[in-house]
């Protein structure tokens, strides 16, 4: 986009000159003339997509430790059958990965990505917080800090964006899909919160819309930083209008789920292909707080996993040509109790898992140190222990895939260990 380049060059020269742009400014005299720091160019890394499973997803029934006796002892009803369990229909058994772990049958759509070396998981992964409170645990995890009142209020992705100046002025540099902007994105770099990409418009009928668009172009014709953001926002509006988000045709035969989450993934894929400056997208999938009637190979959680898995599989295939510049992280605030409860569900636990997808994950094995589920191996009231801090995984994503090694700022008061989950 030549316009963008021109604007950026102009900003750089204006900042170097340090002059107030007085004569042609389009607003009252008391409005500000902000000094604009010169942008240091640093190349951006992958496009990062973060899927947050809200409500504490049951890690033990996602990547099933089918080689673990204690798993079946504690989950007589909810346990996912062993891959060779003849008494259970084949399509309801665990899909074996490595002889010990296997996929929940609803995650079977992810098998091709696993086989391509583009999908893996870090098991027994999570946060040190033991509150077992959804609100607290999510807030801490999205902020990337250890306690509610320590560390910055911004989110870890927000700090990643703030510390890596890629010279990318796109208002779609970071996009949060959902009702509320994700906490992980908050920080000094503007983010776009969208119900959906199709929502990124001005509203109104076409005639009014065109006039409003032109009016905005006239009003944001200045050369101050806010006007520049405005011009970029207009570019994106135009781009998206041209893209016709509702008419987007994915390059995959796998269907995206017809849900808000599925449509969100599809729109992210569209943005990646449109090359509109997207660096980070955050999207949520809720409903994982399965205290009651969680189900096993079928049922409540199986349906959610099906939505999760088929969406990721469609995204993976749709963006296959971009796989080398794409990293997907799936996470949840904590896991669930190993022992099933009396309501055929599971209560709040501790250890969870994270899933990683993309062309540069180290595939072929399930990562992490497996703590075991036997007596003496469980944590607290009977939970999967945490053997990998979630920040170790995210830190490795930042360093290796996002070209950002400012870990002391992204995860303050934490020394991350890069454990080799990614290339």
């Amino acid at each position, binding site marked *: 986009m030549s316009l963008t380049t021109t604007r950026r060059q102009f900003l750089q020269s204006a900042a170097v000159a340090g002059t107030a742009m007085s004569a042609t*400014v389009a*607003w009252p005299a008391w409005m500000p003339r902000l000094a604009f720091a010169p942008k240091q160019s640093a190349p951006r890394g992958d496009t990062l997509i973060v899927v947050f499973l809200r409500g504490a997803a049951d890690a033990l029934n996602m990547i099933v430790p089918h080689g673990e006796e204690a798993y079946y002892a504690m989950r007589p009803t909810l346990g996912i059958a062993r891959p060779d369990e003849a008494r259970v229909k084949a399509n309801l058994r665990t899909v074996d990965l490595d002889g010990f772990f296997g996929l929940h049958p609803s995650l079977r759509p992810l098998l091709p990505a696993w086989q391509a070396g583009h999908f893996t998981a870090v098991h027994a992964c999570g946060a040190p917080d033991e509150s077992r409170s959804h609100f607290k645990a999510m807030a801490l995890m999205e902020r990337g800090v250890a306690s509610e009142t320590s560390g910055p*209020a911004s989110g870890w992705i927000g700090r990643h964006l703030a510390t890596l100046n890629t010279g990318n002025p796109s208002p779609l540099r970071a996009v949060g899909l959902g009702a*509320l902007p994700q906490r992980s994105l908050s920080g000094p770099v*503007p983010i776009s*919160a969208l119900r959906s990409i199709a929502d990124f418009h001005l509203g109104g009928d076409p005639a009014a819309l065109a*006039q409003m668009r*032109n009016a905005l172009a006239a*009003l944001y014709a200045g050369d101050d930083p*806010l006007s520049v953001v405005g011009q970029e926002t207009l570019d994106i509006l135009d781009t998206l209008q041209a893209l016709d988000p509702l008419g987007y045709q994915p390059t995959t035969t796998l269907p995206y789920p017809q849900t808000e989450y599925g449509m969100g993934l599809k729109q992210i894929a569209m943005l990646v292909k449109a090359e509109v400056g997207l660096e980070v997208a955050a999207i949520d999938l809720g409903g994982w707080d399965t205290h009651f009637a969680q189900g096993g190979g079928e049922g409540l959680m199986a349906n959610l996993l099906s939505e999760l898995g088929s969406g990721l599989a469609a995204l993976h295939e749709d963006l296959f040509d971009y796989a080398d510049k794409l990293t997907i992280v799936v996470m949840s605030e904590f896991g669930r109790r190993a022992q099933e409860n009396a309501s055929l569900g599971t209560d709040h636990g501790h250890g969870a898992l994270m899933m990683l997808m993309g062309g540069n994950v180290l595939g072929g094995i399930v990562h992490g140190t497996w703590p075991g589920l036997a007596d003496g191996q469980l944590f607290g009231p009977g939970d999967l222990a945490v053997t990998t801090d979630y920040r170790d995984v995210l830190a490795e994503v930042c360093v290796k895939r996002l070209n950002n090694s400012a870990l002391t700022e992204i995860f303050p008061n934490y020394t991350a260990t890069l454990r080799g989950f990614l290339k």
Partner: protein
Amino acid sequence: MPLSRRDFLRLSGLVAASATVAACTPVYRKLAGDPSAPSPWPTLTDSNFAALSRMTFGPRPEERQRTAEIGLAAWVEEQLAYETLDDQPVYWRLQNFETLSMSANELLDWHSDLFDGVDMETVPRELAQATLIRQVYSRRQLYETMAEFWSDHFNISVEKEDCWYLKTVDDRQVIRPHALGNFRDLLWASAHSPAMLIYLDNQVNYSQHPNENYAREVMELHTLGVEGGYSQQDVMELARCLTGWTVKTDFWRGDFTFNPDFHDWGAKTVLGMKIEPASRAEEGVREAEQVLERLAAHPSTARFIAAKLARRFIADDPSEALVAKGSAAFAQTNGDIRAVLRTILLDGLAQIQPKFKRPVDFVVSALRLLNAHTEANGQLLDYLARMGQVPFRWPTPDGYPAISRPWMGNLQPRWQFAMALARNEIEGTQVEAPKLAEHSGARTPAEVVDQLSALLLGAPLHLATRDNLLKSLKDADDTELPTLVAAGLIASPAFQWR
């Protein structure tokens, strides 16, 4: 104003019980003095506009007229004496919100249901709605900006545990009574506020397992400031003093109580002050109260509060001289908030630097200046959420950021709001841009732009911008034009600043 018999009967019903918003709208709008077209129309250049934008949620023409008549200093005095300003319009509008006046116990009872569980949405939504309605309609604008200021200073998120209903009590009994009162009384009320004790975990501060959260924040964020001269040892010792400050959980759930069984009865030293253990159980609460008195009178507190007020009202980076004057006023008056604010405003207004509107400032100023009618309902809150600021939902104890930088950007939801507002597409909110333009006396499209600029921006657009704007709207007809001009100006860069 004359009421018909029919209106009177409907009014009686409204006051007596719980008429729905829809059913009583005509009457309460009549009673509340629904804003008619602004009169007189403001002038195109207004030297008080920027200062007024800082002390109000957007200056209505009446306020601009008043300052033109009596001057800014006298206007500040009028606003500081807020009790003398009639606020009936707000009073009537708030009659629809039953939960505002309920006690903690009533709130919990009212919204608990044995079968459907607890409705945790209505109480915080009504508090947010009422807050916005006050900001839009109240004539006590400076008082409302201070209520917002202290809500950030003593931040409590309704998303933390029982705060979803206790914040309503905190707003009514802590923030609003003391917003322009004495800082010591405000701090005292906040420290005894169940919502605050729960928000900062003091209800789990036991002698055997001390929790330092509130003890730390009351010094770091509420009084001394992080560089204010306290140590980790002081935090731990104050936490010991505060053991047993908790919230009733059974009878009178949600009320403050001091539980001697949880209290640490040893001797403590806080900020160099030796605190002897109370001799009688019921006097244990005095230990921390002595520290509160000390904190309220501390020179670091005077400075911290003065600097924060200067940042809110004058500039993101206020001058040292101004902070010193405000601080001196605090010390001389033993924390009279009115006196400190008077000093900051009268000395500082001449040196104000632009600040980027926070989402609430942006939305409320658009509503006020376009003379909107609003119920501030879910749709409006939804727009605010997408811009990033719903009242009382900031999770961390530092409050919504007061400086410009975190808020710059994310223009698209603001533009969408401007368009939806001007075109009357927000449920429960109405504006009449064409009527406003007609009232202004504008005859030509250029005059429409000038008059609406005078109303919304307090100044003319640059000539070239005005011409380009007119060119871009050349296809609009006579009724469309004012709507699109209003939308454009609200969405414009200038309107994002105050």
